[in-house]
């Protein structure tokens, strides 16, 4: 489309007026790039090179990664994080989507109250709920079980996901459903056959957003799955850092930091628009 139009000539007066703005954001972004780039370069060097400021002098050292992956157990934690994030996202969306659909499409007793309760849950600090949940987990002997953490992630994210999808469903046209109802299609069938496909953009956005959040989650994991077998990547990194700083394994330390953030960074490079839409679609409670 744009190619057909004549390329607008650069309006230099306008660009000059914007120059201070360009400078500020360029500096900020350069700083961010340095912060991340240096860590990646350091993770491929040796500790000696980091100390003498001659990084990559002896080529790329991928053995830092194999060290933290195998000896540092990061491989195991990585696998845990993949399970937690995928299962929790799937569970959250499966529970939230029908609820959001009912709340956004039908008038019934308690509709408003339920919606408000979900919104209220968004501003409850997590610390308010951990003590009783911990008591339950200990007395049922469910501490340090993968299922426990997945269950908690699902339940904790349902209010946000439902709220996000209510907003999304209310932007969708009702004509298809009305047509389906006239044709005698049952509501459940209408939901599965018509709404689910229509809602896909919203479902994908919220799923990616939740995936990143759960991948990075630390607080709940620390309380409920701190065991060496069940801990996810973020907590695994935390538990490794202290040992690595005392033994002076700096290159390996930076490699383990990269292992934690690289998956979300790659996801972000391809899907940043979706993730940003997740923030502005759900973060604003108006």
């Amino acid at each position, binding site marked *: 489309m744009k190619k057909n139009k004549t390329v607008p000539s650069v309006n230099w007066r306008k660009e000059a007026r914007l120059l201070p703005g360009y400078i500020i954001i360029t500096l900020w972004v350069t700083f961010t790039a340095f912060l991340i780039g240096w860590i990646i370069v350091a993770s491929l060097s040796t500790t000696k090179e980091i100390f003498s400021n001659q990084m990559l002098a002896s080529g790329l050292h991928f053995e830092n990664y194999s060290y933290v992956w195998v000896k540092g157990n990061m491989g195991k934690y990585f696998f845990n994080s993949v399970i937690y994030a995928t299962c929790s996202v799937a569970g959250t969306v499966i529970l939230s989507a029908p609820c959001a659909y009912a709340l956004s499409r039908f008038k019934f007793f308690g509709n408003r109250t339920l919606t408000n309760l979900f919104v209220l849950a968004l*501003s409850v600090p997590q610390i308010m709920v951990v003590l009783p*949940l911990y008591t339950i987990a200990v007395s049922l002997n469910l501490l340090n079980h993968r299922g426990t953490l997945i269950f908690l992630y699902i339940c904790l994210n349902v209010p946000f996901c439902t709220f996000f999808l209510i907003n999304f469903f209310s932007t969708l046209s009702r004509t298809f459903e009305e047509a389906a109802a006239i044709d005698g299609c049952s509501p459940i069938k209408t939901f599965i056959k018509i709404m689910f496909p229509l809602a896909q953009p919203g479902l994908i956005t919220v799923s990616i957003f939740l995936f990143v959040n759960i991948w990075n989650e630390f607080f709940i994991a620390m309380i409920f799955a701190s065991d060496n077998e069940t801990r996810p990547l973020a907590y695994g990194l935390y538990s490794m850092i202290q040992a690595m700083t005392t033994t002076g394994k700096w290159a390996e330390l930076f490699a383990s930091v990269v292992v*934690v953030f690289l998956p979300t960074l790659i996801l972000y490079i391809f899907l940043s628009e979706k993730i940003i839409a997740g923030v502005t679609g759900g973060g604003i409670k108006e």
Partner: protein
Amino acid sequence: MNSKSKKIMIACFTLPATLCFLIVFAYPVLRTILMSFYNIDNIVSRMSEWQFVGLGIFTELLNTSLFRQTWVTFLKIWLFGGIAVTLIALTMAVILTSGIRGKAFFRAAIYLPNIISAVALANMWIHYAFNVRWGLFHSLFSFLGWDKMAEFQWTAPDNLFLSMMIAFCFGAVGYYMLIYISGIEKIPADIYEAARIDGASIIYSFFHITLPLLKGVFRTTMTIWTTSTLGFYIWSQMFSSNRDPSAQIMTPTYYMMRSTFGDMTSTFTANNAGLGAAICVMIMIVAVIVFTAINRIIKDDDITF
């Protein structure tokens, strides 16, 4: 569709999510409130073993100077961090909506720290940016010849709060920027156009159009900021690793976690789950007070465009 089958369908659709809410929000919040009135030796003790002490724990806490200190720390984070993040995020949002090129790229790049795990981000700051041997600030200031600045001990106990706030705010800016951008973009362009024709400068427009029309957005960001700073925990934990927590960076949430769940290096484990619950209740009370105040001060004018 008849009303009975509709009712069944609504029940099937809403019950599972409602159940989640009841299990992890409603029940725990109520039980935490109840727990705060009791001495509870062990977090798994049955209710019959709890010892009712009324408001005893609350008075005990308020008489603990270390605990009072944590609220000062919270207030500093909330106020100074809030001002810094708001000013920077708003500046970025205004720049990005002023018609610059590469807006999508810059917006994504500034938001980027938010998708990195806080643990990873904190370690990037502590072990790279703030390092005194190979750190980013050290190299930058040495290069510029500012030797005094280059030798600044970022992670020394006295400077820990400042360093932590820089690292935390750097990450938070992108998130609030996105919210301000979407707020600014909702303001119709013709208002600015009209102001421009009347001879208003960009700065005048910002103070007389943008800021007043962003009132509702400020209410949202202040609410989110309050929730997130009341739960301020990970950054304190990261910045105090390897040493006893410095009182400077200890927040109420951090104090609660240390005293309830303990820590190998902790010197003040209380082993009283009631005390932990009482701290949680105080945090919630503060949240409710702040939310009410925000809604009172910033009233809804029902501006519609």
